[in-house]
């Protein structure tokens, strides 16, 4: 009974606000409060989306964008986690590389995109590289913080019970920093959407960003909104999937991670 209402609360309430906004938007549009040239009502946007789905235009753009996002995400996240763990665990490495990271991290990743095109050429590689770099620093910084936040006593237990360096890494450092690694991954996925759309604005023929940009140039305003809706949907999907994964993989998070604070 209690569980039932809990589930209702956790799924219905968030959906309620989303549909509420859409319904409100629709009503305002139909009552003539919104200029349909700039703000078409959701039902027309959705209709436009469905027709793009039927003629394959949507799948074409979506698949290209998703490929760039995931390729860049994997290429940036995996080395980011590894280097972040390493920098967190080794003070020497951290002292050596921290200034470099601190200097490079704040540069907007779109700002270096022209440079990437010079290096990798105008093609898929430079686009994926931009996404990868955006992900890399976010997961690096969070993984490093994850290691540095590990309570000292866990290291003492590991040492006292004879853990080797490898065991220390796989049984203590990696799992203990998972919660912050997840934070990095969440931020990285969000950033990869931002970067991929920006990159597609300027350098691609296909992809959600290119689709939005082309719709603007040809003033197909509904298509433009379809692109924005797709971005929102992707963002939402990433968040939900990650949250589920987090609950499964780090169920202890929020409980007793720092034993001295009990």
């Amino acid at each position: 009974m209690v569980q039932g209402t809990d589930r209702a609360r956790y799924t219905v309430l968030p959906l309620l606000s989303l549909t509420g906004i859409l319904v409100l938007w629709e009503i305002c549009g139909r009552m003539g409060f919104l200029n349909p040239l700039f703000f078409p009502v959701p039902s027309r946007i959705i209709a436009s989306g469905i027709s793009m789905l039927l003629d394959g235009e949507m799948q074409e753009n979506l698949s290209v964008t998703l490929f760039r996002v995931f390729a860049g995400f994997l290429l940036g996240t995996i080395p980011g986690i590894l280097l972040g763990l390493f920098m967190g665990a080794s003070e020497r490495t951290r002292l050596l590389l921290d200034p470099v990271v601190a200097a490079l991290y704040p540069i907007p990743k779109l700002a270096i995109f022209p440079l990437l095109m010079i290096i990798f050429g105008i093609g898929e590689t430079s686009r994926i590289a931009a996404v990868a770099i955006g992900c890399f620093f976010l997961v690096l910084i969070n993984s490093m913080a994850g290691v540095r936040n590990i309570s000292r006593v866990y290291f003492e237990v590991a040492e006292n019970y004879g853990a080797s360096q490898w065991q220390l890494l796989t049984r203590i450092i990696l799992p203990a920093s998972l919660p912050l690694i997840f934070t990095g991954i969440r931020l990285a996925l969000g950033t990869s959407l931002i970067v991929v759309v920006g990159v597609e604005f300027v350098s691609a023929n296909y992809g959600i960003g290119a689709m939005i940009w082309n719709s603007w140039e040809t003033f197909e305003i509904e298509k433009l909104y379809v692109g924005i809706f797709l971005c929102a949907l992707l963002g939402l999907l990433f968040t939900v999937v990650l949250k589920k994964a987090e609950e499964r993989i780090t169920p202890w998070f929020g409980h007793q991670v720092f034993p001295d604070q009990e």
Partner: protein
Amino acid sequence: MKLECRNICKLYGEGTTASRALDTISFETGEGEFLSVIGPSGCGKSTLLKIIAGLLPPTEGTVTYTGDNPGTPLNSMVFQEHGVFPWMNVIDNVAFGLEMRHVPRKERYAQSMEFLKKVGLASYATRNPHELSVGMRQRIAIARAFVNNPAILLMDEPFGSLDAQTRLILQDELLNIWSEHRKTVIFVTHDIDEAILLGDRVMVMSGSPGKIQEIIDIDFQRPRDLRIESTREFIDIRIRIWNILRAEVGRSIGGDNHGAGN
């Protein structure tokens, strides 16, 4: 296995800001002895245990283990903050030391299960620590140390954070397991009754810097239980220890008041 500490000194920090945590600590333990260590908070008990465990280097002095212990670790520690890993389930926590020594999974689970039974947690083997109470987590830490089969057990205020009833139960369990395995135990506590009830001897320490004031023989028959606490001898020993500690605490409180200008 016997342990000998000779002239152990420990300074924290360097140069003029260094503070002396331990001052010429010398004692030895007998074979299979249960040595209680009691002293005011901050007198260096944890520091001493970590030096004995090899987790901290002493500034001066030596720790010597004598006797043979084929194939088993020298010491295992139950930490003051217990250090149960939230990312491992109960049985993996208990089996941690065995895992570090590459004992095959089946065998380490079998051995761990035996000790989980002894601390009454057999039915929680596959649960996660954050689902358990503080007292249960402390039992995990104790089982983890015992199953590792060390020559010497080091226990740092293992019952310090427990309520009175749980504490009594765990004291009883600890005595039972110890009487079965007869390991040398160094047991740190700030509870006078606990120190006497459990120990063959009680080492009374004073603070700033940490020193041994006296080592008192406790001659009660084993197996012991709560009933000895109402005997004349017990009360005499308690008063004797209290007098040493009170002089010590009085000195430090007096000093503080003076310093604060009261």
